[in-house]
Structure formats: structure tokens, C-alpha cells
């Protein structure tokens, strides 16, 4: 059995992020302790300005914390603002991002958007094409593989974005309000997709959402208020 099998996908201890100084000092998140297991699908809830995006960007290694420790797959990667590994490489190999808007590169076709993520990680040629096709197939949009994003519906674009995020088998999938631009039915389908992806691929999934209607698909929900985690619920307790 893999020695990392029981290692959490993400582990945060005492993570704090402060913006500005003096009179303009704002503590966006404070003393966050959070663990997300492999294959666990977690929803992050909270009102606007509660620090959700800051937390997400800190976990995603794009916004270094002021204090605290972040470990991915058991490897310490950030100690306060100090980078303990090559952050860009770590992001490339371990983290997948999905956004409110699909953020597909407009001049690349659906399959090329997936291929570019693979190319960034060093996978090219036939194996890359095969992997990209498999991902698009598994998300049900392989028939639109050669379409530019402008020719895809919002739901299809979001599926391509998910395929791109999964391209390099990330340990952690981070999604920032991925269904905000979708209607209720489509939004739920996408949330279910996250659940399936997390459970099938073994990646930890953290989804920031306002959509209360689809919380039942998550293994756990956590709440953030004024930069502090207030409570965490297992799926059964959440709804």
C-alpha cells in the first residue's frame, strides 16, 4: 500500500493572513486549522468578505500566508510567508484550479485547453492527447473537443475547465464558486461531478460556494466568518 495513502491531501495549521499594516491592517483569515483527506469533497461556506477567497488562494499557494504552516500530501510547503519547496512546480504537479468563470484560454480549443495543462507539466505527444481525450470523454464533452470556448455553453466550458484541472492528477482540487454562473440544475450536475471526481480520483476537493441547494453532495461543509472557521459538519449533519 502506498505510504501516503492515509496522508491528508491538505493540512493547515494556524494559518493567518494579514493585509496592510498600521491603521490599514486587516486580518483576512486567522488561525485556520484545516485538514482535507484524499478523496474527500468539502464545501466552504461563508458570507462575502469572510476570507473564503484568501483561504483558497493560500491553500493554492498563490497568496502566501503571514503565519502558519501548510502541508500538501504530507510535505510542508509553506511556513508563514517562506516557501519550503518550488511553489510553481508544486502548484503545477499537485493542485488543480476551477473558477467561477471557466477561464478557458479563448484561442485554444477544448482539447488544447487540457493539453496545455499537460504540456506545462511536461507531458506532450500521444500520451498527452490520449489523457486529454479520456478526460473529456469521462466528462461527456469529447464531441466538442475541437471547439473553441466561445462555441461551448457555460456548462460545457466548466466541464472543460474541470478536465483541465484534473489533467495532471492533482492531489488537491480547488474550486471558487464554480456554479455561480450556471442555472440550478446544471449547477447541481457540476457539484455532483466534483463529488465523483474526488471519490474516483482520490484528490481532495475544496469548493467555495454560496449555493445551498447542492450541499448534500459534499462529504463535509465548513463555515468561515470574519476569517475564522466557525463550525464543520459532516454531510449527514449539514442537511
Amino acid at each position: 500500500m502506498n505510504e501516503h495513502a492515509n496522508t491528508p491531501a491538505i493540512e493547515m495549521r494556524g494559518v493567518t493572513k494579514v493585509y496592510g499594516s498600521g491603521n490599514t491592517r486587516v486580518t483576512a483569515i486567522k488561525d485556520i486549522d484545516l485538514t482535507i483527506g484524499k478523496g474527500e469533497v468539502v464545501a466552504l461556506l461563508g458570507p462575502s468578505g469572510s476570507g473564503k477567497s484568501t483561504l483558497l488562494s493560500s491553500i493554492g499557494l498563490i497568496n502566501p500566508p503571514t503565519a502558519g504552516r501548510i502541508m500538501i500530501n504530507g510535505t510542508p510547503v509553506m511556513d508563514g510567508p517562506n516557501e519550503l519547496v518550488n511553489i510553481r512546480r508544486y502548484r503545477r504537479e499537485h493542485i488543480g484550479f476551477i473558477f467561477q468563470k471557466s477561464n478557458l484560454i479563448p484561442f485554444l480549443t477544448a482539447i488544447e485547453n487540457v493539453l496545455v495543462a499537460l504540456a506545462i507539466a511536461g507531458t506532450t505527444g500521444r500520451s498527452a492527447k490520449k489523457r486529454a481525450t479520456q478526460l473529456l470523454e469521462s466528462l461527456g464533452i469529447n464531441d466538442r473537443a475541437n471547439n473553441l470556448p466561445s462555441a461551448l455553453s457555460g456548462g460545457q466550458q466548466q466541464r472543460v475547465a474541470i478536465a483541465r484541472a484534473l489533467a495532471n492528477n492533482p492531489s488537491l482540487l480547488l474550486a471558487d464558486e464554480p456554479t455561480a454562473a450556471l442555472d440550478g440544475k446544471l449547477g447541481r450536475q457540476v457539484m455532483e461531478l466534483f463529488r465523483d471526481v474526488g471519490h474516483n480520483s482520490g484528490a481532495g476537493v475544496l469548493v467555495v460556494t454560496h449555493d445551498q441547494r447542492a450541499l448534500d453532495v459534499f462529504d463535509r461543509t465548513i463555515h468561515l466568518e470574519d476569517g475564522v472557521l466557525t463550525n464543520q459538519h459532516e454531510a449527514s449533519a449539514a442537511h
Partner: protein
Amino acid sequence: MNLAIRDIRHKLGRFALTAVGLGLLLLIVMGMGGILKGIEDDATLLIDALDADLWVVQRDTRGPFAELSRVSATLEDRVRSVPGVAGSRRFVTHTVQRVHNEQPLRAMLVGLAWPDDRGDWLPIVEGRSLSQAHYELVADRSLNLGVGETLRLGKDEYTVVGIVNELVGSGGDGLAFVTIADAQAIQLDAVGEATRLERSSRRQRGARQDLGQTQPGLLERAEGPASLNPALGPPPVSAVLVNLSPGVDPEFVRSSLMGWPDISVYTGAEQRNLLLKGPVDRARRQIGLFRGLLVVISAILMALILYTLTLEKIHDIALLKLMGAKNSMILGLVLQESFFLGAIAYGIAYFLGDLVFPFFPRRVIVTNDMLIWLALAVVALCIAGSSLGIWKAINVEPNEVLA
């Protein structure tokens, strides 16, 4: 997967229009260089074609291309007697402007020293060189004259017997070759009334002097043509061209000639240099400065275009960085697009130049050296123009995607 090509493909129309615009700008830069080269080449074309080792001109003047120079026609014979001189020729040149076939015709007339020089050395592309002492003319193609066509100059009709290609003067006027006698007849042509008045005043001057009173024969001749009057002598020429015997040091012959008080002597290279430093210099500097200005404007425009192209992609670049793309990938995207733009614009400038430059009124000479220089300049402009965009791209924060 080449991101630059895909980005270009995505906005092909706009990219093509930008490339055409930039290509036209490069065409002007290339054209200005070609015009400059054309002026220099045109200016020295005749000097090079005449291939004289020494130019003997009026004392303290810089020769017929810089200012008016008049030396005696008999100087040709005097020069020929100097040791080391293999041959000498009279040289006459002046510009005429006439109306021919209801069109203005401006030509630089060059006199050939008939019968020694019949223009056999001219690069004749149609017809032949001169075969008689009068009334024949070899013309440059730019004068739009055909073989057999006749042209009235002065009191006489001249028949075009030969056509040369790309032989123009420093002002860009096509050259026309006639014998020296004809060139002078055209230059000194005066209407009948003016000739009659001159002869009459010549007789009156003679009648007032002792010589005229003691020698009536002289007075009679004063009323006749100038050529019959030995006291008047033949009209002066512009210069005398000297060719030296093989192995003779030009400085040796020059020092001998410089002892004569009525002339100045220049080598062919000096005469060439005087021409470039004199009448051509101001035009050359003017065009050179304008060309420099164009290069600066092109550089600024190119930098702006490339910066805008990068700014349009800044969100996508931030996304690529968020996904972990290396700087080399971002650099490649920006630089490759810049090079594609530069290369296409250069190609457009090259092919358009090939098409339109031959129709310019003056020669536009684009040499291989100039093409290489321009290509290197475009590469440098692409790199310099991209640097601002690259700086922006490298410094964009990945979290801009989240904003």
C-alpha cells in the same frame, strides 16, 4: 503546441491588418534607404562610367559637378603632352529642359569627344553608339525616347540612335550623349537676332580699336561666325579628363599639372568625393535624418503594438502562471508572436517594395546589405518592443485570475 500560432490564428484578421500596417511602415523605411542609395549611386554614376584617372578643371573650382568650371578646349592637347598621360578628353555637360511631344523633357547633356570618343563604352541596350559628328544622340531610357525618334535642341533636329539603361545625373535627370560640338552648339545657341546684334557690336568694337583700323580683314571677319574668327577661339569646355599609362603614379602627373596656373587637378576618387560632399550631401543628410526619425517612430509603434498584444493576453498569461507554466513558456508566447509579426511585416515590405519601387521617378536601390540591415533592425525592434510586454507578463501575479 505553439501558443503564439494559435493566438494569431484566433485573431487572424486583426493580426493581418497590424502586420500590413507595420509592413507599410517598414516599406517606407526600406524605401527611404533605397532612395538615399539611389541618390548616391546616381550622383556618381557618370563619374564612374567616365572612368578618368584625373579631372582637370578650372583653377580653384571643385569641378563641373560642384560649380561652373570652364577650361580652354586646347587644354586637352596640352595635357596630352605631359609624361605619363595616355590620353585626354574634353568634357562638357549641362542640363536642358524642353517640351517634347507636349511633355516636359529634362536631360543632362554630356558631350563626347568626337571622333576619339563615339560612346562605344556606353552600356547601350538598344540601337548603337554615335556614328557621325553631328545630330545624333544616345539617350537614357528614363527620357522615354525611342530609337529613331527626333528631338529638336537648339536650331537642329537630333536623332536618337541608341538607348542606355539607368544612366542618370546627380539630379536624377536622364543622361543624353551627343558630340562635344553639338553639346556646345546646344549650350551656346542663340536666336538669329541675338547673333546679328553680337556680330554688329563686335564690328563696332573692332572699328574703335587700332587693330581693326589697321587690319580691315579682321573687321570683316568680326561680322562672320565666331568659329571663323581666330581671335575668339573655340568655346571653353567643363573639364578635361585624363587617363594615365599603366603603372604611372597619379600623384606624379598631378604634381606636373598643378604647376600650370590656370587649372586644378583631382583624382577620380576625389571628384567622386567632392560630388558626394557637395550637391548630394544635403539631400543625403535630409533623407538620412528622416529615415532615422522613421526608424524611431517604427520602434515606438512596434513597442506599442506588441505591448497591447501582450496586455490583451495578460489574463491568459496569469492563468498559465497559476497552472505553473515556466517563464520560458510565457516568454516564448510573447516573443514568438512578436517575431511572427516582424517577419510577416518584413515580408510584406519586401514584396511590396519589389512591386512599387520600379515605378518611382528616381531610382530606389535596395541592396542585399540593406535588406540584411533591415532584417536585423526588425529583430532588434521585436526584442526591444516585446521587452515591455515581457516585463508585464513576467510580473503578472497568478492571483489576478481570481480577481
